[in-house]
């Protein structure tokens, strides 16, 4: 490196030539037809998306309620009584199982969905031939801690599902055909780009909405400043449920938090109704679960709003209910 500045070897390109090459290369690339247009299926572009197409699959009953001592078997039997998972999950389809993994709590504290229920759903979906089972939730506590301590991460990995942290750049914005407080809200792409959406909440107490049930659990597929969803939460959750349109709702009421929800923490607040509720109408399933807590639908903002909007049915007396004991 003792070479002086003046004597450039003749074979080297001169600076001017180099810059010409660069400029013409850039010009060539930028004049290409597709350079400025983004690829159609680029991940994470905040495209707006319409609601998930509704398949309107009916089960053998409106609601199946399974009681027993084994949440795994209760779930399997209840779905079987609904007519089998084959009605809902096609071969080579992509399934989303959306449990509640919101809190850094253990399964005993009943703040997150029971991992056994999730395990049962993964197993029957895979038996039905699902190509891929996605599991995710936007957590309230640190996502790594929630995934680990809820036990759901381990179960998902063991039973062959894909569990991941949703990414805020990988969203679609909701496009409603009607006036909605959720208009333009970012929704994680996987929640919309799936063949079957199974909503698996845990039933528990909640300060604002009195109870967290399946409709409230859908907040976990939303990005953005989620705290703002609490303003007018009833109508917003109805719109969100309408938008996502879960094909199957499995409410885990095996262990429930009856006070100090949704965070809980104390085992004194946990009760064990040992019940799994399966339904195709989220409103009906929630109304049944509410009744387990001794609550009427009109006390719960999103069920009240559902009734006013005639979205789903809150009338459990009119529903075809099937109870099994496992």
């Amino acid at each position, binding site marked *: 490196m003792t070479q002086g500045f003046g004597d450039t070897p003749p074979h080297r390109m001169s600076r001017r030539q180099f810059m010409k090459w660069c400029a013409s290369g850039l010009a060539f690339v930028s004049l290409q037809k597709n350079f400025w247009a*983004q*690829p159609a*299926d*680029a*991940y*994470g*572009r905040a495209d707006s998306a319409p609601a998930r197409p509704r398949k309107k699959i009916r089960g053998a009953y409106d609601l199946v309620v399974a009681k027993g001592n084994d949440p795994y078997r209760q779930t399997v039997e209840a779905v079987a009584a609904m007519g089998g998972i084959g009605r809902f999950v096609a071969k080579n389809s992509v399934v989303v199982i959306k449990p509640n993994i919101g809190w*850094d709590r253990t399964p005993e504290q009943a703040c997150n969905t029971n991992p056994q229920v999730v395990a049962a759903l993964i197993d029957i979906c895979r038996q039905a031939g699902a190509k891929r089972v996605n599991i995710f939730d936007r957590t*309230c*506590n*640190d*996502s*790594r*801690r929630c995934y*680990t*301590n809820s036990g759901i991460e381990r179960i998902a990995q063991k039973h062959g599902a*894909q569990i*991941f*942290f949703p*990414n805020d*750049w*990988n969203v679609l914005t909701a496009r409603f055909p009607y006036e909605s407080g959720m208009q333009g809200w970012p929704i994680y792409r996987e929640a919309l780009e799936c063949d079957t959406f199974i909503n698996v909440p845990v039933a528990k107490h*909640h*300060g*604002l909405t009195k109870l967290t049930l399946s409709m409230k659990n859908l907040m976990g597929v939303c990005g953005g*400043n*989620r*705290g*703002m969803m*609490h*303003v*007018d*939460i009833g109508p917003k959750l109805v719109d969100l449920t309408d938008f996502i349109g879960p094909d199957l709702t499995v409410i885990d009421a095996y262990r429930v938090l009856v006070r*100090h929800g*949704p*965070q*809980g*923490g*104390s085992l004194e*607040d946990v009760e064990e109704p040992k019940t799994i509720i399966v339904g195709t109408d989220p409103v009906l399933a929630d109304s049944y679960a509410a009744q387990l807590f001794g609550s009427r639908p009109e006390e719960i*903002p999103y069920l009240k709003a559902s009734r006013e909007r005639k979205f789903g049915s809150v009338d459990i007396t009119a529903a075809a209910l099937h109870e099994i004991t496992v």
Partner: protein
Amino acid sequence: MKKKWVAIRRGSQVFFFALFAGILWSTAYPLRGIIPPAAVFSIDPLLVFFTALSERVVLPGMAAAVCMVLSAVVLGRFFCGWVCPLGSCFDLWAAALRIRRDRLPPRLLNGLRRLKFAGLAVSALLAAAGVQSAWVADPLVIFGRFISLTVIPALTAALDAVLVGLMRYAGWGPLLLDLYRQWQRSFLGVHTVFFSNAAVIFAATAILCATVLAARRFWCRIVCPLGALYAAAAFSARLRRVVAGCTSCGRCARECRMGAIEPDMRYNKGECVLCMDCVYACAAQSTRFMFFGAPPRPVKKKPGKGISRRQFLLGCAALLAAGCRGRQNGRQTPAQRPEFLRPPGVQDERVFLNRCVRCGNCMSVCPTRGLQPLFFEAGLAGLWTPVLVPERGYCEFNCVQCGRVCPTGAIPRLDVADKQSRRIGTAVVNRQTCLAWHDKKECIVCEEHCPVPDKAIKVVWEIVNGVRVAQPVVDAARCIGCGICQTKCPVRPQRAIRVARR
């Protein structure tokens, strides 16, 4: 190999640089590294002894630190030349910039090198008086802060941006997404948030590295108090540099990055970092380092031009007095603004400032990135100390990691149940901006997130226009000040519930 020992020394430098950086990278949830993250700093005798002395406690790393000093007694200042990652940074820069000579005259540099002993003495006296100042210039904490708070976040953010860019704009999504998500659980992490004042930390380290322009290893020769401590231990080192038929060509003296070789070709053991350059610079090829068989170093006692004994004693007394006074002052006024929230378990602000060595471990491990380094917001004494900033992240209820990685116990090592009862501060609702109180809207996000099992945020119901509105009220007796309510409060730009110390 031509320069075998230089190659081995460089290998050692690369190894320890990678080791330290690797340990710092593993300082993250779920702390599954083999080597505990505190180890980087608890082998450092300067930090460990001076913190222990100033707080009159025994610290867990002391045995290792004693071993480090003993190794210097046997081997000399090998730590500086073979291990210290900051020293390796200087060597790397000097090599990259092809600096082979010092710009400043050797006489000036040799005159200035006493300064580091003065600094060490001041630090020791302050520690004896009860004030820990070892953090100010310790090379390991400077390196640790630099890596943990600037390099690692920047690298992960860059990697994240590249991967996300490939997925979003280059159509690599189907290929990369699952891999990306797997990496998020390991080295990529889920947060790529920058630390506050990271630019200052980066600039400070950059300036340090720029001192190689004045002289290679300028810092190690003139400032470094850890170097001074090892130099003091190395004066009687067993491993010695021996020159057989010296021709007095002076090449070794010019080559020496530490200026350890005197014009008369003798050498100063306290300055030699055993870089092994002189072995290969020797024209006569007669320079060796050996443990035994070396002639004893000729004792040279120059009449010192330094300070007199009387001045020295007076200086010591003055420093001790100043230190004691500083400690007294600290005890009377933990002069802190109430919004500076300390990590969980910290009780006494003065003790905390004294124990904290500003290594950045707690901030790097905090899963919510709530712990952030202070600049001069709390004065010089608070420089680079961690504070919880709930606007950025809260204290995770079940997490005790910051106490686990603290090398000096400034943040106590608590079990989860104990930590959950320690108060960081107390939340206060601002009823002027709160959605529920001011706008009469449904919200209660703060109450929802409150992790205290019987809820430190209570709800009062008010009926407005026939609609029941839930409004939050803080139960100050139960609130532990974890700050999750503030982090999650949807009100912007300033949250409507804020945590402050009482």
